[in-house]
């Protein structure tokens, strides 16, 4: 048994692509070794990566495959042997499989008698197999973006391959990948080790040898080192903490081979810039960790993760360099902030005419007008329901929401759109409700993100998104399959989430109605309206599909519960959630499962009746069997109670009441032949069960529930 090491040496791989490639290479090598019987099934391998390398170490690799015997079948026996004498067909088969004719044997199968041969195959050595198979396993790794580098374009890969180490214990496997012959020489840290080759004496020594060359090849170890070093450096500032930022930790883990951490400072005067701007500069532009004080507020420090280890003089130089860069970026931001204040948001609205929202639809000035229309409609519904909010502040926020698109600071930090508008609104003395609504307009950014807290911001968020969805549907830009270039699904998910998690008295149909007719393009594109585009029913269906997604994937309700609940009404989002929760709790009871089964049966019977064109009659005037009469009485008694509970949204108690129907329902189906030959009786039965179905399906369509 040997250890096998493969290391692919590369020029710096983009940090975002390394983790996925490391996993994939590990899997490919494992699969190859398993497939070729060089390791036992289920064997695990270790994987490593740094910006300059991907590596795999497998233990327990056999020196060679075991020999195998194979039974091969050839032509029909009677074709190959005439009177026991081999003819041409037998000879050809023997030659093909590499045995003597005398070694051919008769094989009897269900289909008849055939010529057979037992062939011994010598197992290939691990070296042979790896040499032959590794190149294509490596070169077909998935990369989000590839490049050519060699003349003649023989292969594409994420970056040029510069060295390959392939060892079985200490023996080089003579594989060639992208024109590079494998050896036992790796490379160390570019600066700390330099260009001298790093010879790996044996596969198992890989990590330790590279550590001596100032490369930590294990990702988990670098992550741990970085986190510890961030903690340690932060302790230099009393009471401070570094701001946890997992994505940033992952990025710097994949940007370093020998990480160390350095604390830098900036002048307190920059803390007057909004925290959002400071953090964006530090995190997104410089990959620095922000530091906060005891009060949770930003402190004038930052942490940068270095890909080197330097002496005190070096630390001072690097700290100084990073501080200078940061300050010049802060200065830029402050410059843009000051310049932007010269033109208040209100004055910027006019210039939105020159900013395209969507070329067939119009500019952001057009978009703003449309948003105002939608917001007014939504506001009217909310007001009518008696919910208090500041209408004037809402409309001001809608009017100014997109004005920051023309701000220099937004051009510099596009990810802060909305947030900067909100900050400017506050700085320019607009009402707090207006400023906060503008600030929060893009919340929630994802299904994990929180919704805005204030009604004004919630309404702006819904108005903006529903307008976008409706308008895009109007020009035939509805998402199809994996294509959703305008992220309309995300927009609709956010609408549903706001409705679900706020207290807004709005239904999906209120939102659809406020969105208006999808075919309302801007003046210059009137012809678009004549193109026969979908109507608001498509928008409604789209939102309903997003509600389904929300209940199932975000809230985690079972799919049958979601189907059952939405079949009974999909307009009031919070009501649907309450019904789904009650149904999820109720379905566990045995009585309820029986009711669900009974409702399924009722539906089937009614379907049959419809197919046979049986008419549904009234219960009166026909003498019913006692069990039928009991069901009718129980239903008549329960229906008003359930209706009251439903109206009170007391879904749990309502479902418990419905479950009490079980004995009478069971008795009814046991004793009564529903489709009685007598037309009047049959009609009465059908009328009865139709009434039960209709009367008790208002909370959920129980027939959708999957039972035992």
């Amino acid at each position, binding site marked *: 048994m040997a250890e096998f090491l493969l290391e692919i040496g590369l020029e*710096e791989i983009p940090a975002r692509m390394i983790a996925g490639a490391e996993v994939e290479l590990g899997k490919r090598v494992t699969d190859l070794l398993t497939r070729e019987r060089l390791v036992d099934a289920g064997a695990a391998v270790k994987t490593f990566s740094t910006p300059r390398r991907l590596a795999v170490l497998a233990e327990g690799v056999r020196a060679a495959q075991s020999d195998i015997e194979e039974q091969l079948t050839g032509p029909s026996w009677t074709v190959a042997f005439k009177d026991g004498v081999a003819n041409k067909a037998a000879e050809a088969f023997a030659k093909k499989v590499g045995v003597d004719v005398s070694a051919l044997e008769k094989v009897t199968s269900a289909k008849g008698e055939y010529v057979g041969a037992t062939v011994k195959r010598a197992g290939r050595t691990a070296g042979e197999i790896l040499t032959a198979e590794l190149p294509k396993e490596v070169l077909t790794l998935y990369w989000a973006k590839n490049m050519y580098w060699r003349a003649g374009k023989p292969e594409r890969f994420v970056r040029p391959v510069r060295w390959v180490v392939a060892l079985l214990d200490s023996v080089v496997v003579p594989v060639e990948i992208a024109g590079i012959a494998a050896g036992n020489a790796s490379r160390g840290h*570019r600066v700390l080790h330099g260009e001298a080759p790093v010879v790996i004496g044996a596969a198992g020594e890989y990590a330790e040898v590279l550590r001596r060359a100032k490369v930590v090849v294990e990702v988990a170890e670098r992550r741990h080192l970085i986190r510890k070093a961030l903690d340690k450096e932060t302790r230099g500032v009393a009471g401070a903490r570094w701001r946890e930022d997992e994505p940033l930790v992952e990025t710097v883990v994949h940007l370093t081979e020998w990480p160390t951490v350095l604390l830098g400072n900036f002048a307190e005067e920059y803390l007057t810039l909004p925290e959002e701007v400071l953090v964006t500069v530090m995190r997104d532009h410089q990959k620095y960790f922000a530091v906060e004080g005891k009060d949770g507020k930003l402190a004038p420090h930052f942490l940068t993760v270095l890909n080197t280890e*330097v002496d005190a003089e*070096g630390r001072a*130089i690097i700290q*100084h360099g990073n501080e200078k860069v940061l300050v010049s970026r802060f200065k830029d931001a402050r410059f843009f902030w000051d310049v932007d204040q010269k033109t208040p948001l209100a004055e910027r609205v006019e210039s939105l005419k020159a900013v395209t929202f969507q070329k067939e639809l119009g500019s952001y000035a057009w978009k703003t007008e449309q948003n105002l229309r939608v917001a007014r409609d939504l506001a009217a519904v909310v007001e009518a329901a008696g919910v208090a909010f500041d209408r004037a502040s809402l409309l001001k926020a809608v009017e100014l929401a997109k004005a920051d698109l023309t701000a220099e600071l937004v051009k510099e930090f596009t990810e802060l759109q909305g947030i900067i508008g909100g900050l400017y609104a506050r700085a320019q003395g607009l009402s707090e409700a207006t400023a906060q609504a503008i600030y929060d307009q893009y919340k929630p950014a994802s299904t994990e993100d929180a919704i805005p807290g204030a009604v004004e911001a919630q309404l702006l968020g819904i108005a903006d998104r529903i307008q976008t969805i409706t308008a895009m549907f109007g020009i035939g830009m509805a998402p199809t399959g994996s294509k959703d270039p305008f992220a309309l699904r995300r927009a609709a998910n956010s609408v549903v989430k706001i409705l679900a998690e706020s207290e807004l008295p709005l239904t999906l149909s209120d939102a659809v109605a406020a969105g208006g007719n999808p075919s309302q393009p801007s003046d210059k594109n009137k012809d678009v309206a004549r193109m026969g585009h979908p109507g608001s029913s498509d928008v409604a269906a789209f939102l309903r599909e997003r509600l389904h997604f929300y209940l199932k994937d975000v809230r985690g309700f079972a799919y049958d519960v979601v189907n059952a609940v939405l079949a009974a009404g999909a307009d009031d989002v919070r009501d649907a959630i309450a019904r789904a929760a009650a149904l999820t709790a109720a379905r566990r009871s045995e009585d309820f499962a029986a009711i669900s089964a009974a409702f399924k049966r009722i539906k089937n019977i009614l379907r049959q009746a419809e197919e046979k064109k049986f008419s549904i009659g009234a219960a009166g005037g026909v003498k019913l069997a006692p069990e039928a009469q009991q069901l009718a009485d129980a239903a008549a008694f329960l229906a008003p109670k359930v209706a009251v509970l439903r109206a009170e949204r007391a879904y749990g108690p309502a479902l418990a009441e419905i479950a009490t129907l079980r004995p009478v329902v069971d008795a009814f189906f046991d004793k009564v032949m529903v489709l009685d030959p007598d037309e009047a009786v049959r009609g009465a039965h059908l009328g009865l069960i139709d009434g039960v179905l209709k009367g008790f399906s208002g909370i959920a369509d129980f027939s959708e529930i999957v039972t035992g």
Partner: protein
Amino acid sequence: MPVSLSQVSTTPAAGAAKSALTFQELLFRLQGFWAERGCILQQPYDVEVGAGTMAPETFLRVLGPKPYRVGYAQPSRRPADGRYGENPNRLFKHTQFQLILKPPPVNVQELYLESLEAIGIDLLKHDLKFEEDNWEWPAGGAWGVGWQVMLDGLEITQFTYFQQCGGMDLDPICAELTYGLERIAAFLQDVDSIYDIVWARDPETGAAVTYGEVRLAEELQFSVYNFECADVPRLWEHFNSYEAEARALLDKANALLADEKASVVEKRRFPLLATYELALKCSNLFNLLDARGAISVTERVGVIGRIRNLAVGVAKAYAVQSVA
């Protein structure tokens, strides 16, 4: 808990900064370094360009199979980036030291690191990272993958492996290294403003001439021109006129290059290089119009498309001509 300003690190190597290379020495060193490694040194291209990439020494030389190594300092104009000389970090015209290595040597990154040592950067005392940064110039049908090279948090070089140019796959590809000279000089000299960079020092008196003394007036006046004075209708006239001439030449070139009866001599003497200059003129006029705010969002894509037609058209014709 908050620290006082004095805790912010002061220049650790104040002495080193004084002995740092002047702006022109920086250029000499880079030129010398790469000349010793087999590069032709070219002079800046004498037509307005937005980046060293657009000069024909890059845009056209990267086409076709012929190996080529060239370096040149290219003043690069971006009218909209002008700040009247008031912003310490932004310029209307900055200087790129542009290097094309076609095909790239296998040790191109190591050579690059040596070039940093050559301009006085002791890598053992700095933090260096190659961070993914891909590049594209849609109007030139050009793109590549590569890195921004970060030194102590500052982007000092754009390193690109060109993959396509003029809409054509390159084979061999080339490495393009673009050093931002002002940034590197400000870093080496540890000055807070580009205008404080020492451009040159009198060898006898040691008196310094600063970047500001050499270029500030130009930044101011061109900002005034670009933002306030450039005559928009005339800019459009120039644009249309240059485009028409380039278009006419390009049509002729395409007809000639496709003509089987035309001689090689005739094909080779066709002035595609001049046609490309006309396309560059259009590109610069577009940037001026943009700085004047004269290009509406709806027009923008269309105008870029017109420039692309010229630039990509010339590149395609050039590729044919060079193998005629």
